[in-house]
């Protein structure tokens, strides 16, 4: 461990990510919008280029050499994902186009199989729209109800309500591992245990969790785990749905098309086995290969190193923010990742964002696709600086200087 820490060379790491050396308006880019999407190491970019230049061909279909290579790379990518989250079997790893698609798949297919009139789906007040709207849509179709775990003033879930909220009618619970709007870590393990006591499955939205710590779906014992490639240093257009085999076997497919069928006649169509049942059409196999390369990069860097570096950044940012007057942080708990969501006095976050942008600092402002949690705090939005392991203390200093500049201009 100590050895590994020694090899964490931030300059080398930063040089792996081409975009980090961009300049904007003649200033060095400070990229603090990692919650929206992360940059890609050149290893990932090269893997994509190589796929398109050296062996590109459709998978699972041809009898020819290139198709074999592509298929093998694709299935190895699946295996890499399996091992990264420690799933029991490759059949439990379904490739989708992203977290949103994964949740929609589960909401639809689980809904078709298990949800009837009057049933309930339980989510939390801090969910991203991707973990709200698909359930709303399904509940509307099935005449079921959405129930919501409320949030405390510090941004943590009010878990005391859980016993009342999980009822006879609850059929599934869906919660974020980490809030994208606040950075707060959700005690998913506890929620899963509570839900499992009543045999209710739990979907964990890992979009903001997978890149910030070790994930072991078997230890967690979650029933579904979903994440996006582009937020974990991989390409756009690829995502993952992990599901326990027992659920995936029972659920009907969500999309129809090539490769997900066994036999098609106009009278009757039978479906292929897992995971292909849920992968209709030509999947984004180059995306999957890119994602696997990103996970390799993380493993080579060392998740422990990443966690340590990000914890250090968080502590430093907290200190500096605290020492800066007039800042109100949302999600005021220690149990957070390196996301700081805040407002500066009465300054509109959009104004702040505009000025920070011109200083080369990329933050996100607004509701972060999580309007209900903003409404919970009575605000329209915040300024969100989301950091990750390739960021530095110096960049935090630049942000603080930026905040001072905003204050001097706007107040």
């Amino acid at each position, binding site marked *: 461990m100590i050895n590994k820490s020694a090899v964490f060379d931030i300059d080398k790491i930063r040089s792996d990510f081409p975009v980090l050396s961009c300049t904007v308006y003649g200033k060095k880019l400070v990229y603090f919008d990692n919650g929206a999407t992360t940059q890609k190491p050149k290893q990932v970019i090269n893997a994509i280029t190589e796929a398109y230049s050296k062996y590109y061909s459709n998978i699972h279909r041809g009898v020819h050499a290139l198709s074999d290579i592509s298929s093998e790379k694709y299935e190895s990518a699946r295996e890499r994902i399996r091992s990264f989250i420690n799933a029991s079997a490759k059949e439990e790893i379904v490739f989708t186009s992203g977290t949103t698609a994964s949740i929609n798949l589960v909401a639809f297919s689980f809904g078709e199989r298990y949800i009837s009139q009057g049933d309930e789906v339980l989510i939390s007040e801090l969910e991203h729209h991707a973990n709200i709207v698909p359930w709303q849509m399904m509940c509307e179709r099935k005449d079921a109800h959405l129930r919501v775990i409320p949030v405390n003033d510090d941004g943590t879930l009010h878990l005391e309500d859980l016993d009342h909220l999980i009822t006879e009618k609850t059929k599934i619970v869906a919660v974020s591992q980490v809030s994208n709007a606040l950075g707060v870590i959700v005690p998913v393990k506890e929620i899963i245990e509570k839900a499992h006591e009543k045999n209710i499955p739990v979907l964990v939205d890992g979009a903001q969790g997978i890149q910030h710590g070790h994930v072991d779906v078997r230890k967690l014992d979650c029933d579904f785990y979903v994440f996006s490639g582009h937020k974990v240093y991989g390409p756009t257009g690829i995502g993952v749905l992990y599901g326990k085999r027992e659920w995936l076997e029972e659920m009907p497919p969500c999309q129809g098309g090539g490769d997900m069928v066994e036999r098609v006649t106009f009278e009757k169509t039978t479906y292929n086995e897992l995971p292909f049942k849920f992968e209709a059409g030509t999947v984004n196999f180059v995306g999957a290969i890119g994602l696997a390369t990103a996970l390799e990069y993380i493993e080579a860097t060392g998740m422990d190193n990443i966690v340590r570096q990000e914890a250090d950044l968080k502590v430093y940012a907290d200190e500096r923010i605290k020492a800066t007057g007039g800042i109100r942080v949302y999600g005021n708990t220690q149990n957070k990742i390196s996301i700081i969501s805040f407002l500066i006095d009465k300054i*509109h976050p959009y104004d702040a964002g505009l000025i920070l942008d011109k200083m080369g600092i990329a933050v996100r402002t607004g509701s972060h696709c999580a309007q209900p949690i903003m409404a919970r705090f009575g605000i329209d939005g915040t300024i969100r600086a989301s950091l990750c392991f390739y960021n530095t203390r110096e960049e935090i200093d630049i942000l603080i200087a930026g905040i001072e500049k905003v204050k001097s201009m706007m107040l």
Partner: protein
Amino acid sequence: MSYHDLTVREVQDEIIKEFSLFDDWMDRYDHLIEEGKELPVMDEKFRKSEYLVEGCQSRVWLYPEFTDGKVYFKAESDALIVRGIIALLVKVLSGRTPDEIMDADLYFIEETGLRQNLSPTRSNGLLAMLKQMKLYAIAYKAKKES
């Protein structure tokens, strides 16, 4: 002198000249914030959802009036820099005939470097407001002619 005495073109040239004094973005924003301060505060009664121009991040209200063949705009925003940009748009387009508004080529947006703020990819409500101004002009023109 009121801006209404100048042509659309003259007002824009004025704005461009003022912006040309600043070569730093912070100064330009300072200037925009100042411009915003000159915009009369919109009466609460106009800040209703029917006058709200939907934009993801900052709220923008726009209220039109048609008097003596000319369109007058009141506008408001909860973000200060956005308010400054609005003030410029009002300066250029308020008190004009529908035809002047419809035909206006707003080159000052490009030349002051504000294009980015008015691009379709910025969801701040500004572009929607500009579109709305032109739509009102079309509507008033049709009304006048009928």
